[in-house]
């Protein structure tokens, strides 16, 4: 069976990310045997967990038809706050306090984007900067460290294992499973798809669009708080900029997974796949001996490729003279 050029284009548009991923994996595996070793694979998943947890939340925001560029900066905030409060009020209180503060930030964004209907790109880009300022104000610009690193149970979330499985991977998996149910099985999940797919039709169907958007940002903030907890617990000390730049990696993972930037499509499972693809590619680049900094460029290229293929899949070909 001979494929026409058009059919090849269509296949590339639809499955391009997967094909690119397979090519990458084979290339990396040939270049370095260690790449597909069990230790390396487990390592990649573990180091992807924090990014992955954040991507789960952003998946809801993106399916609801909006963007969230504030998650990196918000994660720095959560990390700094929980580390600071750890020594002041103890871990048992510090954790819920940090969650409450992070959720407040999410609620504020949700209010602006959902109820005031402001453009999410502008709001969250602004919040990226504003939250960074808030973090620096909180910490006075200094690194935050737990005084007694050996004597706290706080390291459990980031460093311990349960039945041999690192806790961050467990938390990532549990959260992914829970959010899969929320998105694919509950009335709320259905509404997220409807609001992102066609907001006007959702309104005409009696769905409270503003409230649904508001909740997607709360979910995103909750995931950021979990990520901040994992980050703080793993390192027990942190700079103010620990999450810097992660918003783009998160977005890349979500889009790689196949969620449309226009809203209305995507799943939690696909996002997990997107996170793993990104993790393996970044790890592979290191293993073949490229500089750590190269991954920033590659991440950008992957975002562009994913966005292009997303549009191409919609119009059924790679290039078209009209939008």
């Amino acid at each position, binding site marked *: 069976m001979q494929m026409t050029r058009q059919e090849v284009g269509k296949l590339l548009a639809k499955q391009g990310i997967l094909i690119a991923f397979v090519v990458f994996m084979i290339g990396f595996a040939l270049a370095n045997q260690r790449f597909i070793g069990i230790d390396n694979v487990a390592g990649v998943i573990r180091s992807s967990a924090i990014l992955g947890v954040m991507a789960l939340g952003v998946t809801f925001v993106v399916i609801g038809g909006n963007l969230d560029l504030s998650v990196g900066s918000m994660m720095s905030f959560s990390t700094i706050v929980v580390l600071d409060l750890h020594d002041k009020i103890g871990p048992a209180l510090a954790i819920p306090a940090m969650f409450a503060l992070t959720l407040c930030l999410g609620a504020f964004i949700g209010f602006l984007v959902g109820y005031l209907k402001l453009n999410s790109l502008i709001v969250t880009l602004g919040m990226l900067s504003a939250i960074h300022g808030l973090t620096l104000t909180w910490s006075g610009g200094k690194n935050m460290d737990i005084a007694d690193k050996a004597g706290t149970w706080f390291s459990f979330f980031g460093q311990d294992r349960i039945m041999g499985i690192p806790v961050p991977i467990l938390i990532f998996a549990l959260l992914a499973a829970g959010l899969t*149910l929320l998105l694919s*099985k*509950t*009335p709320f999940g*259905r*509404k997220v*798809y*409807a609001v992102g*797919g*066609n907001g*006007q*039709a*959702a*309104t*005409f*169907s*009696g*769905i*409270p669009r503003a409230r649904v958007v508001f909740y997607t940002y709360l979910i995103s903030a909750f995931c950021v708080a979990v990520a901040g907890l994992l980050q703080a617990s793993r390192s027990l000390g942190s700079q103010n900029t620990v999450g810097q730049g992660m918003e783009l990696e998160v977005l890349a993972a979500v889009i790689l997974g196949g969620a449309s930037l226009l809203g*209305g*499509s995507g799943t939690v499972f696909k996002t997990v796949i997107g996170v793993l693809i990104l993790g393996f590619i970044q790890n592979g680049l290191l293993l073949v001996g490229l500089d750590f900094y190269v991954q920033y460029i590659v991440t950008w290229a992957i975002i562009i490729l994913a966005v292009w293929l997303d549009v191409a899949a919609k119009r059924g070909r790679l290039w078209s003279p009209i939008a």
Partner: protein
Amino acid sequence: MTDQTPVLRLEGIVKTFPGVRALDGVSFDVRPGEVHALMGENGAGKSTLMKVLGGIHAPNEGQIFIGEEPVIVTSPKQAKAKGVVFIHQELSLADELTVAENIFLGELPLKSFGRVDWGKLYDDTNAILKTLNVGFDAKTRVGDLSIANQQMVEIGRALTVSPRAVIFDEPTASLTDAEKVVLFEVIAGLQAKGVGIIYISHRMEEIFKITDRISVLRDGQYRGTVNTADTNEDEVTKLMIGRSLDLSRSPVTHELGEVALEAQGLSCGDLFEDVSFKLHKGEVLGFYGLVGAGRTEIAETIFGLRTPSAGKILLNGQEVRISSPIDAVRQGISLVPEDRKDQGLVLGMNCRDNMTLPQVDDLTAGPFVSDGAEIAIFDQYRDKLDIRTPGWRQTVGNLSGGNQQKIVIGKWLSMRPDVLIVDEPTRGIDVGSKSEIHNLIRELAAQGYAVIVISSEMPEVLRVSDRIVAMFNGHVMREFTSEEVTEDNLIQAISGLSDAAA
């Protein structure tokens, strides 16, 4: 009347779209110095014909002649270069630019190095404005002009070439009587220069006042051309509508129930004012009027999408406050909106999820949506409405217009509403599905539903309604029972003719 070679001639124009013969052998000509009316109901093929003339659609068969030269039109710009220009109903002007820039948009006079020759631009524009006899000049910002004057700018655009044929599409739709007089003078001026004019309008009064001949389209077919002087409104209406209306109208065969919905002096800013009506159970109340008469806005107000500025809404005799669609749905009001694709459906979702969307909160087992309950509802209404789809997993965007509309209707019927409002029930739907939907609406009324149908198509509103509310310019002009209504008095009412004061 010296040279009688037509300025524009169409011969056997056929245009088909998948499943539709939008134009089926249209032939007529426009003589120099003539005003030639083109009439037909909505969907008769007038706009398709204009798109063929403007080169937006290529005809499948037939030939266009400009003068004696057979032409193949490829774009509006090329049509204009050949002397055929369009004055569109929807103004397509850039508000922030001056009159001169708008008139010469895309063809600004240039000096060396691509600089605009402003002096020449303003002089040329003022020369054109002078022939139009208007009270503004070339440097006026278009956004500051009245709608009527903006239309003059649009006409001015046509005069940058010396046109042979000018096509006016519903030019008086938004003009006052005084403004119409000015427009008719401009048309007479063009006539005097030997320009042929195609004049598209629904308004009989104007047609008989200013046109020389009338050509009629019905269902894409050319029904003939008559001399205006030799005919009357009845004859033209008959040509337009064709079949006898009484045959297609369903008589009221069932008892009317109590009043389900009542509006008392309902107003919403300047969109509509002092609207009162009663809707009974088991009745279809039709709202008829031109686009912009305020019908959709009334529906949106009742559905909680707009806030009324005055008046009351009573549901089953109780005054209700409806401040959002959520309220409306809770109170038992459903709206099948005018724009299926933008307002009715989430096109990327499957059939079942679209249909159950408004009640997804109630279809749960524990915290989760119950697949079984959803599929049961989908199956019930798929059978009831005869929706043809391979299965509930089918993406709604892949269905035909008629089946999409049935999904929207099913979505709202499954809510078992007390009041069902259907706005343009058959817009963009093929003829077969159209009559199915009409029958369905009649059936619903027979089952005791209180139904409002808003439509811009006269045969539709006559066919499905027990009573008809005629609207013009945001006001209820008259309410007809199915016994009193005729095409003539209905057209009069929606043209504002029976309202001498306005």
